[in-house]
């Protein structure tokens, strides 16, 4: 791998020992990834923020690195942690855990990484542009940036993303190159997917179908389109998040929609080695259903909800009060906007709480006595049973809102599979 004069200087300590360590990590990862050189990155998103995930050793390492004095040289953002920094007491989180979480945030802040604490930096910070090179970490953010925006990023780990932040560089390989962005499989969709949760179910299925493609699956999807209204972005976000979860997909092309497919769809399709068909989403929806009893929580915002998604929730509630608690996970940046406009207050009065800085997959649901939830997120439905032992009733946003308002009819449409929800399919 060829390092520039500047990169060699960083490696030998011209910008301090923290940046030298960063360059050592990047050059090793570049050799492994087959990179010829490095590229400048426009922004960085750092995962491995949740103390629940990285533990005491991860914290000790971040503190040591922060102590070496190097700072981010490009805009860099944190992925969600394990606690809402404002509402942790209300949510019943132990103070000791929150203290550890704050130490992680402090160490990362010292490294110059901003505490956005979100998996949707494209809602909470300036949106990247087509062709920008990035070093992002969180799987749904990576998939969104590559696919919907047409920016270029591999899926970074926590330390490699920090290394990119401290140097402004990342090794140029895989999704940073034209060849690495060619599709592996054409996915022909022969059934409608009008809602964002349908898109999630489709993404879950596509991820499964491509999980064993060599060099990581990249689908070229045909036959389905996102809605034209304000739910368009949520639809695209749900599609990518689900396939990133079930199949580690970092990029999808959608015919006529995503920028690279719109510009050169026919050439891209020719590169794909095989073709698969999707004729129904029913099997995927059943696969995402794991509720074993009556859900006690309705959860939205995986990935973090945008302001448009909050407005849509408000529209669907139509002033009715939820009788089952509703949690909407979002970024602090979006929550602040919603508070300013009065939207957050109205949602709260209807029983929908906005939770920021954390994520449904890492929030301590079991400690709070929550064993079954309703959600419209295929990504959450994929992770909650294995990560948290929580059962999921996977529904559209519309049905999930109705479930929250009606209470007794939670999971009614899936009653035969939900042991204690009372039976009687509607």
């Amino acid at each position, binding site marked *: 791998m060829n390092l520039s004069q500047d990169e060699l200087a960083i490696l030998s300590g011209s910008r301090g020992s923290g940046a030298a360590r960063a360059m050592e990590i990047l050059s*090793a990862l570049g050799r*492994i990834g087959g990179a010829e050189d490095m590229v400048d990155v426009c922004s960085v998103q750092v995962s491995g923020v949740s103390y629940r995930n990285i533990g005491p050793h991860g914290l000790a390492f971040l503190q040591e690195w922060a102590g070496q004095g190097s700072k981010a040289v490009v805009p860099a953002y944190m992925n969600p942690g394990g606690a809402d920094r404002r509402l942790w007491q209300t949510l019943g989180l132990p103070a000791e855990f929150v203290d550890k979480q704050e130490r992680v945030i402090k160490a990362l802040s010292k490294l110059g990484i901003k505490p956005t604490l979100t998996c949707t930096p494209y809602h909470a910070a300036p949106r990247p542009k087509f062709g920008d090179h990035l070093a992002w970490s969180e799987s749904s953010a990576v998939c969104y940036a590559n696919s919907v925006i047409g920016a270029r990023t591999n899926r970074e780990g926590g330390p490699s993303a920090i290394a990119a932040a401290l140097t402004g560089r990342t090794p140029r390989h895989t999704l940073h190159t034209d060849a690495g962005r060619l599709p592996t499989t054409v996915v022909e969709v022969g059934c409608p997917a009008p809602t964002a949760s349908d898109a999630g179910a489709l993404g879950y299925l596509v991820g499964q179908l491509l999980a064993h493609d060599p060099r990581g699956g990249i689908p070229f999807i045909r036959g389905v389109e996102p809605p034209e209204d304000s739910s368009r972005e949520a639809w695209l976000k749900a599609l990518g998040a689900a396939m990133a979860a079930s199949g580690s997909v970092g990029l999808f092309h959608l015919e006529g929609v995503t920028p690279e497919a719109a510009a050169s769809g026919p050439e891209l399709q020719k590169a794909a080695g095989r073709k698969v068909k999707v004729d129904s989403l029913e099997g995927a929806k059943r696969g995402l259903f794991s509720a074993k009893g009556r859900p006690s929580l309705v959860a939205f915002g995986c990935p973090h909800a945008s302001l448009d998604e909050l407005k849509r929730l408000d529209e669907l509630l139509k002033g009715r009060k939820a009788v089952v608690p509703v949690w909407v996970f979002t970024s602090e940046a979006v929550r602040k906007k919603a508070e300013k406009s009065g939207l957050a207050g109205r949602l709260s009065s209807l029983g929908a709480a906005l939770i920021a800085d954390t994520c449904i997959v890492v929030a301590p649901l079991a400690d709070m006595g929550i064993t079954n939830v309703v959600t419209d997120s295929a990504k959450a439905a994929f992770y909650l049973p294995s990560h948290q032992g929580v059962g999921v009733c996977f529904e559209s946003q519309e049905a999930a809102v109705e479930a929250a308002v009606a209470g007794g009819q939670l999971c009614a449409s899936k009653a035969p599979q939900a042991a204690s929800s009372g039976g009687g399919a509607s």
Partner: protein
Amino acid sequence: MTVKGRLIAKGTATGPLLKSEAPMGFFGHLDPETGVYREAGHPLDGKCVRGAVLAFPRAKGSTVGSYILYALRQTGNAPAAMVLRECDTITAVGAIIGKIPAVDQVDISRLKEGSEVTVADGDVTEA
């Protein structure tokens, strides 16, 4: 006998070879407090990695495994060096942050368990 591998993490170290033909999962299996690897059915189950030149094909499992290699350095239980067939990102990051000399693209089947091995900036020498 000296073979040239691909440098992953710089440094020189010598130790007895501890070999696994199966991938290693650091997180959840390798205890930083003792240096002992525990995974039922794994060739290294119950073995201590401290001071050994650890030869294995690649890592498996959680990316948090990088921090386990860092923790082993802090507790004094780190292996002397690591020799891999095809290095993965978990091991590469862990080797660098844990300051454990590492090299890959080495045919580990030719290295003998227990023999004294030196890893020096990408070269692997078996006594």
